């Protein structure tokens, strides 16, 4: 019996094994309970897969979304509701990558003690509802996107995608891509704003770039194909070429660099390929490498050919230029600071920034942006059917540390259309954040 008694410790060992498992389970629960509870099957906090509790406010405490026991409420101001639809999300759950999804873990109001009792949590977003509304009014119903971010922290102050619907009433009219957040999920031909990428590659690979001159005769002949320019710019420095948005100059720079160099640069800058966005990724920008010496290569260097970018990637690129070559990745929660990534060296960033400021001073007109110390680039992307996307991207060199990208789909000329929207939003921001 003594032997059996000793051997019976095997039962004790088995019990200890189970106890160990219980410990592992409790440890996992402590670490990941919030994520488990935030799963959309949890009917205590989701109704049909949509969050049914929690509050999202803008950075100043203005309520953008709130839910309790399946009752939903949104911003009081109609324009804010429209403007924030894509960034915030709504009770229908048709839009992807919204704050509602991103912060569901906090919004379900999980606590290890009470689990998810339906009270919900509150998250203060980095968005400024005043800028949201301003951008929405400036877009004035035209399809497009506005992204404004703080380049010192990465906080996104404005993220508006049009068309949108009022989340209070749901979608009432059909519009193509209503459910897409154009800022991060839309891909658009960049046109001349892509010259910032080509210029970056040139600054890094052509040592005498800044002392060179480029001659523009109004077009570039390549194997029987013609690359047209916006005018006849004659002899010009690279700064002047960027301010003129000269296709001949940037076409020949692209030919000199070769497609692979530009592609590598575009990928490093986050313009080609996708960017991480809260556990998911943004739409993947595109840059195809065309044959050496060909017209498509020249076109690809000036943002045509098969080039596609997202507005967010362009705002981020401008934020990197503003930040001396390093960028804080975009964040949507007030007070958060994005991870730091270096896209280019400080010298290159300084040069690009000076060129962008030169654009404003000598080409776009400072009077069009009163009171703003602006560095920017316009883009008028040809779609091939005669219409053009209007782009305006850049940053404020002094005043509030903001970088931005504005897109108007088939919106006409970059400076007039997109520049106007950008000016409107930036004037508001400059007023609110002057100190």
């Amino acid at each position: 019996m003594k032997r059996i008694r000793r051997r019976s410790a095997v039962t004790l060992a088995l019990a200890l094994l189970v106890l160990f498992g219980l410990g592992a389970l409790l440890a996992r629960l402590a670490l990941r309970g919030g994520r488990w509870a935030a799963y959309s099957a949890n009917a205590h906090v989701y109704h049909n897969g949509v969050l049914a509790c929690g509050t999202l406010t803008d950075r100043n405490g203005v309520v953008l979304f709130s839910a309790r026991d399946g009752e939903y409420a949104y911003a009081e101001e109609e324009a804010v509701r429209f403007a924030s639809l894509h960034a915030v999300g709504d009770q229908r759950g048709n839009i992807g990558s919204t704050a509602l999804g991103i912060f569901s873990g906090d919004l379900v109001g999980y606590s290890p003690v009470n689990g998810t009792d339906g009270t919900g949590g509150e998250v203060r977003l980095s968005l400024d509802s005043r800028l949201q509304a301003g951008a929405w009014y400036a877009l004035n119903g035209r399809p497009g996107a506005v992204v404004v971010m703080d380049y010192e922290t990465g906080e996104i102050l404005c993220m508006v995608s049009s068309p949108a619907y009022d989340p209070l009433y749901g979608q009432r009219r059909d519009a193509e891509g209503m459910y897409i957040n154009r800022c991060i999920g839309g891909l658009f031909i960049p046109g001349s704003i892509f010259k910032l990428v080509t210029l970056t590659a040139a600054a890094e690979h052509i040592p005498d770039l800044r002392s060179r001159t480029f001659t523009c005769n109004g077009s570039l002949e390549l194997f029987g194909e013609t690359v047209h320019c916006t005018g006849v710019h004659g002899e010009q420095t690279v700064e002047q070429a960027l301010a003129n948005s000269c296709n001949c100059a940037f076409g020949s720079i692209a030919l000199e660099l070769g497609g692979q160099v530009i592609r590598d640069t575009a990928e490093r800058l986050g313009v080609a390929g996708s960017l991480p966005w809260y556990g998911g990724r943004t739409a993947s920008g595109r840059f195809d490498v065309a044959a050496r010496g060909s017209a498509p290569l020249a076109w690809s260097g000036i943002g045509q050919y098969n080039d596609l970018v997202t507005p967010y990637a362009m705002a981020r690129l401008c934020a990197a230029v503003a930040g001396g070559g390093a960028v804080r990745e975009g964040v949507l929660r007030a007070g958060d600071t994005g991870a730091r990534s270096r896209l280019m060296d400080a010298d290159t960033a300084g040069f690009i920034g000076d060129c962008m400021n030169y654009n404003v001073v000598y080409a776009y007109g400072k009077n069009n942006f009163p009171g703003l110390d602006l560095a920017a680039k316009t883009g008028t992307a040809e779609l091939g059917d005669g219409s053009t996307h209007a782009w305006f991207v850049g940053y404020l060199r002094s005043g509030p540390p903001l970088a931005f990208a504005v897109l108007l789909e088939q919106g006409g000329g970059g400076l007039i259309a997109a520049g106007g929207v950008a000016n409107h939003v930036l004037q508001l921001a400059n007023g609110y954040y002057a100190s």
Partner: protein
Amino acid sequence: MQYSGRILAALAAWIVLRCARSMLAADDAPEVWAYLSPPKGERIPVAHWECLVGRSGGADAVIDDPAAAGTHALLQRSSAGGWSVTDLSRGTGVLLNGRAVEGTAPIKSGDRLRIGKTTLRFTAQDVPRRDSPPRRRPASSATLLLLTLFELTLLLQHCFTAAAADRPGIILSFGILASLQWGGYFIERYAGARGFEPETLAFLLTAAGFSVAASSVPENMLKQSALFVLALTVFFLLGLWLRELKRVTALRAAAAAAAIALLGLTLVTSESVMGAKNWLTVAGSSLQPSEFVKIAYVYAGAASLDRCLQMRRTLLFTVFSAVCVGALALMGDFGTALVFFTAFLVIVFLRSGNPLMLGLPLAAAAAAVALVLTLRPYVAQRFASWGHVWEDPLGAGYQQVRAMSALASGGLFGRGAGGGWLTSVVAADTDLVFGVVCEELGLVTGVCCMAGVLLLALFAWRRADTGRSSYYVIAACAAAAVFLAQMGLNVFGSMDLLPFTGVTFPFVSRGGSSLIACWGLLAFLKAADTRPGGSFALGRTVASKTPAGGGKPAAAKSAAAPDAKKDAKKPAAGKSGRSGQAGKRAARAETKKKGAGR
């Protein structure tokens, strides 16, 4: 209602703690059934029905004699009271009253046993003696009162959430549960058995199971109650049956045969349900025979010490186990096969103590697993999703992901009985039952349920010190192993710490077969419980005649047991947990006998 979750958690924790304090308290002095008195030095107590005599430290009665073998002889008591001695010396031999013992010979009080160069006088005790009074334990009735409050709180929560049409059934079933637990308690108490903690824990788990059933299939509560009555009946009948070791061991082969027959029948006739061919439909209700086989398996697998010493019998048991596990694997019920395999390993290790005996079956099992994974791809799929369920929450990880989410959403105190959503997921009330309990009743109550099963296992281990026969010890440990394996696979499988195999949580998972099997296995634990006045499943020697029960019967026996007078004066009587009732009845019985003598 707001605080009912907290009340529930507090009650569950309190119940478990009270039971733990009582079940894991320091041991009472062991029962002494006989003495071996050497010519010089202290007499050696024989504290079990089976006693190895020899020189080695592993012997129960150690004799300091270089001429004796390590394990020289086996003393064995039959439940009728007679003793026998078996020569295990392989050569030197055992002399009984000067004559060599060939094989096994009967031995009685006063006989002289010569082992090596030592002569021992054998004195049997008609009644087991204890060298110290029984310890005080927390009152079972108070714990049971807490349990009743626990059930009442559950019932209140259910009345709050359940549909009006289901309420009467739920109330009635909880009423049946509470009355049966009190009924069981008073019956056992009347029989002189006060160690009600294992039952209390099982009732706690069953109450949690009733709550799950009331949430999941409220219209079926009466069926659940009926099955519970059946389970409790099996528990008491099996417990009573286990009292007499002789009749128990006589039916071991029959139990083994029944197990194989039942599994064979299932294999031939059953319908496949969710990939496992383990359901049998009898008279309109479906059974899971593999659950009943668990009882038969433990029954047939446990062995008294003389059989443990025969390697041939252990090998035979291995073959029997291979048939059972193989049949379960053929049915596709791999979870249950794993439970049986765990029980097998525990039993074989207890019987042989030989790690080598485990090596071959383990290797064979590994080969079988490899074979299964190639032949049954859906099992491989379960293994493939193991640890990655969140990557496929709508496919292979569907159930686990939901169980984990529900568990977290319940917090410490739950969303209230009947207030959960996990019950709408397939097999929530069986395979995902831990998630349901934690979601509705809270993590504290869920962990208390696990602690309850762990306590039962620790109890089985503790009782190994004083079990009368190795049969009872092995059976209790095997039953505990089944409980632990099932709970481990159920909880950790549904929480993605182990592959999801779909076995039941003992006592809690809904299902009549499983409930009956669990209560049946609990009887084995009761049979190993030799605490004074503890268990109804012990032979009547203790239930009516322990010296602790009162002075008179012990004094009456003083002629047979020379030291009994001394014991009778000890202050055990009257004060202890196992005081009045049984002792008085025993005394009455003695008086009657005397009267009849005159």
